[in-house]
């Protein structure tokens, strides 16, 4: 459903236990049948062949278009799941399609920094760190705090695009896993993965070109975005991110609800509904 991989997990360097835990097959098993079905079908499917095309949610849009290396994608997936894990409240990052969301974001305008100022000279690495102290920028500050991304933004002083930062970051996650635990990042126990992610969050991990906090902040930002953006971008699958938060999605009007004292839960609708398709 979420990850194209061979039937034998070991071939891809991921333990079945962790994979199942991450995708929620053990905990909850919300869509277990569908998941297995999709997974198996995917393996048998030839490229370009569509299977459940009659279904609205057939994930036909799912394939990597940025990460050319499937191992990298597995590392990314495992990391996002730790940032936004599956629990009693609902699905985690993998089940919500977050890795695919990130993959697509990196393949596009945002990932290639198409609309950012990328001319030199660039202040080089060592000095960059001073500008990546994220403590000054938290979610409650700034005139548009209400509408800002929930992760700290850092000043961007590198010739690397976001796509390049992600690739470096994923490689650095793997390298750190090897150095610290002599195992592939996706194969580690959750607690070990958390330990590594925390090193990145605190800028204690080593990365090329940028501080590890820069990568970590981008990873966290996109994970949250992938959980809650409109499903049209490949994340927030089935609007399950919205369901957890009781967020109704884009609507024409709330005039009838705006004065209501009680909380009103609505069935979520997406841009697809809103634009009338």
């Amino acid at each position, binding site marked *: 459903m979420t990850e194209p991989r061979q039937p034998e997990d070991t071939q891809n360097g991921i333990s079945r236990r962790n994979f199942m835990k991450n995708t929620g097959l053990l905990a909850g098993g919300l869509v277990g049948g569908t998941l297995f079905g999709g997974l198996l079908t995917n393996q048998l499917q030839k490229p370009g062949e569509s299977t459940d095309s009659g279904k609205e949610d057939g994930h036909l849009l799912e394939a990597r278009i940025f990460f050319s290396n499937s191992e990298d994608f597995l590392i990314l997936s495992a990391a996002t799941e730790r940032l936004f894990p599956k629990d009693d409240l609902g699905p985690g990052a993998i089940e919500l399609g977050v890795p695919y969301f990130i993959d697509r974001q990196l393949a596009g305008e945002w990932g290639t920094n198409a609309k950012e100022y990328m001319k030199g000279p660039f202040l080089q690495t060592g000095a960059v760190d001073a500008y990546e102290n994220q403590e000054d920028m938290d979610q409650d500050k700034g005139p548009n705090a209400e509408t800002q*991304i929930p992760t700290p933004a850092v000043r961007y002083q590198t010739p690397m695009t976001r796509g390049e930062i992600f690739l470096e970051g994923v490689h650095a996650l793997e390298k750190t896993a090897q150095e610290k635990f002599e195992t592939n990042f996706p194969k580690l126990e959750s607690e070990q993965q958390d330990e590594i992610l925390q090193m990145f969050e605190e800028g204690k991990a080593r990365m090329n070109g940028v501080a590890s906090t820069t990568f970590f902040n981008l990873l966290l930002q996109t994970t949250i975005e992938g959980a809650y953006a409109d499903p049209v971008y490949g994340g927030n699958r089935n609007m399950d991110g919205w369901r957890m938060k009781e967020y109704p999605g884009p609507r024409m009007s709330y005039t009838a609800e705006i004065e209501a004292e009680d909380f009103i839960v609505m069935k979520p609708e997406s841009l697809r509904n809103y634009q009338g398709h």
Partner: protein
Amino acid sequence: MAKKLKKVDVVVVGSGWAGGVVSAELAKAGYQVVTLERGKKQDRQDYIGVKDELRYTNRYEMMQNLSPETITSRVKMEDTALPVRTRAEMMAGTDLGGGSVHWAGATYRWRAIDFELRSKTIERYGKEKIPEGMTIQDWGITYDEMEPYYDKWEKTAGISGEPDPLGDKRSNDYPNPPMLASPAVKLFKETAERMGYHPFQVASGNLSQAYTNPDGEKLNACMFCSYCTMYGCDFTAKSDPLATVIPTARKSGNCEIRTNSLVRRVLHQNGKATGVMFTDTRTGIEYEQPADVVVLGAFSFTNNRLLMLSEIGTQYDPTTRKGTIGRNFNGQFNITFLGARGFFEKKKFNLYAGAGALGGTMSDFAGDNFDHSNVDFINGGGIELRQYGDGAISSNHVPRGTPKWGSEFKKNSVHYANRSLVAWYTPAVMSWWHNYVDLDPTYKDEYGDPLLRITNRYTDHDRNMAKFGIEKCSEIMKEMGADIVDEDEVPEEFDHIYSGGHYAGGIIMGADPETSAVNNYLQMWEMDNLFVVGGSAFPQFGGHHPTSTIGALAYRAAEGVEKYLKEGGQLAEAKQQTLNA
């Protein structure tokens, strides 16, 4: 060699509230106007069906593409400024209607004292109250003189509101009644009232009812869909230039609006502007547009940079404190809008619904409405609680101490998604000798022209004011019944994040040509047929949001341009003042 076009009466740079109002007024008066907009054509149809938080809020769909041009930023004169590279750090509106299309709609008149801040402060507290190095000054115009222009703009925009009980004299009520109040807004207003304050509903550019403005433009009632700030309104229920002054300008038959037209120089000869040079961004072809009057009505950064690149006026030099172009950079950044966030266990609000200007406010701690004898700052600002309508990505507020990721984060972010409210202080930001703009020596745009450089740092005065506001907001939030109240921290230093669009100064107005670049008609002292309109004219910021002051100044400037076209010459008398600073 630029291709020379046919001369017109007036060429206007920019199509937001500043450029748009001037274009409409002069076109209505029968003058031939050309309005140049660097961005693309946009209208209401472009926003129908695009209520998309990721695209507009997180990916800045309506903001200027920074790859050809940005600004650079530093804190102190000794620092090397670095480019502000991403749109998460630098938001400037673009496309037809400019930043005025994605504004939230909150509408405040600035207070009488804001326009005479220096003299009134000295009058009440003595000269010592103004700290050394603070370069605040009077605007060369009083609130009473500004009032008719505020009134005119409010009618054009169809502002919906109720008067501030502590506000200055108004000639008329707002043209429309206030918006409906949500339970969160009611809770704020009732609490503030119980505490002895004077709350009222934020006056709004999100209309409370269908309305036809004096130019015949029709607007609809707001539906509280929540897609205002960072979005264009798909229902013509938020007043913006696309719904008001741009169609008015077009209808007149006298205004040609050219999009994809990036103005790069003001052309001038013998102390008079002769027109502008612009590049068609689709073809790269350069044009010269001659005109009798040139009006710069773009974002404050652009107004400043155009004058500097065109070598008009005298660049401000902080070491000598002389020169007027680039002086008194001011605005609202991360030292403003600080306050307190409350988390409620027993209450759940429909926070997905809202509107950009839906909110309650009070001005008990604004301007000179409270005694400053025992506080170590001057002026002040409003306290606001707004219900913008939270998007799902942005509604991840969690109590302090919650990890930023992982299961506890997820649990708390989901739990509090509809249970947290924030109140903030919107204080006036004062001007200082060390905060200014000039051209960067290193970084260039795609044409090889230097970028604009901003030098800006905080003072104890700024931090004292912010701290005061945070405490007041926190008291209110506790009284509102929040179970957890998290107070914002006062930042040590400017963070170089240029979000929000409230950046001003540089081409400031005043009565004295020694310390101001434009007179009270926004006409340049040094070039009679050049008017510079917008937030760039603010000598210092007021304690509330800036839009209606920009709208009012645009009406004032339009009157000035017309007067100039009829009579010529300087429209205001220069008055030498004692040099401040």
